């Protein structure tokens, strides 16, 4: 039996170093590379723009003989065109990089960088509550909607605690304060000094928003700021954290110690996820190393302190628990089910049904509905759970008669569980004599008429076990098992 357990694994192994005897055409490759490594659509664009340039240039040469002044705008246009082309190519390549390479970490960092700037200015300019633009954040909100199996019980949670030192709010001379400004503060200052503000910089432009924002604008003006959030030495040295590792797909709780209740906080989880809660929880979907940034703002203070700590959390991959199972021998009151662990890369796994550990071979009573969990752990101790529902029914649920009389008298001559009329999916009905299949059908118009596969006839007065097996589109398998008695004269 065990050789059957991991046929998928063996399948993988057989492909692992599969190298068909083919030879790549390096010359063709080189030629494609020679046209400078742009993909087909880009090349198309290049050639079209080049054609346009040639045309513009040719036109200008012709024009040159007639009137020199006509040439000048043409040439200028040509320059513009090539700059545009360059830019669009760079953009296209960057886009492609992002899509193709799927370096989750790099992506996350890009998102992180892009957002934190945007946010800092939002934060500064509008005060709390911070408005997060979902479009800007991209996938951050998806994190909350990670697909979880409903019956998952084995996930462990992790708490990530940040010990903030005491937060003191006190006045400082303006000059000193300026040194502590973050880049965003500086930019804000600059903008204020520049006078007329662009659209979106509502605060200073109107100066009449709610008090909070006004204060924010004031403090950003630096000369009128009265309070500031001071970082103590401990904090400068780095956050004190309680965990450094977590599992992908597992909830990590974050907490701040020593946080002033009135202060506002913004967590940036480093994977594109954000939270304004003081003690949020977050699920990292992908393994990797994430920088976690916490921004804290003291009450009524417009300034924002950001501390970014590198490699704050390492998210380990979790195994993807995969299981399947097979019906083995059965009688009318119980079925032996063989459970198959198909998880890849797991170091240990356990079968759980209800509250109990079970072995991979389990006898289940009919009728019944059973949820079997496979808890798989990998070397990092990360776990995943797969759940399969096993449904077992008897003749009542299958709407099947307890007996029939295949004697050709036109009454109860055939046997077919009526539930097959309702089944949307494939099904197979088998009739068993001991360990042997004596009849099989998957056609509702081909019910059992008492004939046996070996050409014989069912024996009067004898009970046969029948099994009706079906798989729903969702992959749930259901088995109906019971006896049927051949009614004798």
């Amino acid at each position: 039996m065990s050789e059957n357990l991991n046929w998928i694994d063996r399948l993988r192994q057989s492909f692992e170093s599969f190298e068909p005897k083919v030879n790549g055409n390096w010359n063709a490759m080189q030629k494609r590379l020679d046209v400078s490594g742009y993909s087909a659509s880009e090349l198309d664009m290049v050639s079209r723009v080049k054609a346009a340039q040639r045309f513009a240039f040719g036109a200008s040469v012709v024009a040159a003989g007639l009137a020199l002044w006509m040439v000048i705008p043409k040439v200028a246009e040509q320059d513009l065109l090539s700059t545009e082309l360059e830019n669009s190519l760079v953009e296209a390549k960057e886009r492609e990089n992002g899509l193709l390479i799927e370096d989750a970490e790099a992506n996350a960092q890009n998102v992180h960088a892009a957002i934190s700037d945007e946010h800092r200015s939002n934060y500064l300019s509008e005060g709390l509550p911070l408005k997060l633009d979902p479009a800007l954040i991209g996938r951050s909100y998806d994190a909350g909607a990670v697909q979880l199996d409903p019956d998952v019980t084995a996930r462990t949670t992790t708490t990530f605690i940040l010990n903030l030192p005491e937060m003191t709010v006190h006045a400082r001379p303006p000059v000193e304060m300026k040194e502590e400004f973050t880049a965003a503060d500086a930019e804000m200052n600059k903008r204020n000094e520049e006078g007329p503000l662009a659209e979106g910089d509502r605060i200073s432009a109107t100066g009449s928003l709610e008090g909070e924002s006004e204060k924010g604008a004031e403090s950003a003006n630096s000369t009128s700021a009265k309070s500031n959030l001071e970082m103590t030495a401990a904090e400068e040295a780095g956050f004190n954290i309680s965990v450094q590792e977590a599992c992908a797909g597992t909830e990590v709780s974050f907490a701040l110690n020593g946080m002033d209740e009135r202060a506002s906080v913004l967590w940036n989880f480093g994977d594109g996820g954000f939270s304004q809660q003081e003690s949020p929880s977050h699920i990292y979907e992908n393994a990797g190393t994430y920088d976690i940034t916490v921004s804290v703002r003291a009450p009524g203070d417009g300034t924002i302190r950001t501390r970014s700590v590198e490699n704050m959390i390492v998210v380990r991959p979790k195994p993807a628990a995969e299981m399947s199972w097979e019906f083995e021998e059965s009688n009318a009151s119980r079925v032996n089910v063989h459970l198959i662990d198909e998880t890849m890369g797991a170091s240990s796994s356990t079968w759980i049904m209800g509250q109990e550990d079970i072995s991979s071979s389990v006898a289940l009573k009919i009728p019944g509905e059973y949820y079997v969990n496979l808890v798989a752990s990998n070397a990092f101790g990360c776990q995943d759970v797969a759940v399969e529902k096993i449904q077992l029914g008897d003749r009542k649920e299958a709407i099947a008669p307890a007996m029939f009389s295949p004697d050709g008298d036109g009454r109860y001559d055939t046997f077919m569980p009526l539930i097959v009329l309702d089944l949307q999916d494939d099904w197979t009905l088998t009739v068993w004599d001991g360990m042997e299949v004596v009849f099989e059908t998957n056609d509702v118009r081909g019910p059992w008429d008492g004939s046996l596969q070996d050409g014989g006839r069912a024996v009067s007065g004898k009970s046969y076990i029948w099994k009706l097996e079906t798989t729903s589109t969702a992959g749930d398998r259901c088995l109906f098992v019971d006896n049927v008695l051949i009614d004798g004269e």
Partner: protein
Amino acid sequence: MSEKELRLHIDGCKRGDRLSQQWVFERYYRLMFGVCLRYTSDQDRVQDIVQEGFLKVFTNIEGFTSKGSFEGWIRRIMVNTAIDAVRKWKTSALESTEDSELERLSGSEEEEEPMLADSFTVQEVLLAMNKLSPAYRAVFNLYVFDNYSHAEIAEKLHISVGASKSNLAKAKRKIRHLLVLNLRQKVEK
């Protein structure tokens, strides 16, 4: 191939060095051909996919961070290219979930399958995969061989996570069934 040699050539590729590019191309061509062959059975198309894939490898090599495995990185690009190509060739091929011939095949003789004790060759598995619909084939490949999660597969193929799981389960069963049939035929001969 030593780790050092590989790193040297990766750096070379980053500078656009032709010899390094050729080294990488020749070192990984067969392996990647094998990867792409799992997605489509047409050899000419596989060749196109691998070429296209290598073009992407060389034009994007700046984006390769030395943290991960280089082979894994190339492989991922190849898989992406293969999926895109299959999608382009057969519009909506990846959305289909039915494969009537196969449904019929696997509908019978479900019971008493012999265990797959004997080993099977890559050729046999490829032949079995050729009988899968493109939708099943893609899910099976992505999950079993290329280590994609169901969530990733769903995103890639624009299907639901549930559909990915169900397609995988069906594909597995069908592949297994075909392998068993094949085994039986071998025994009979």
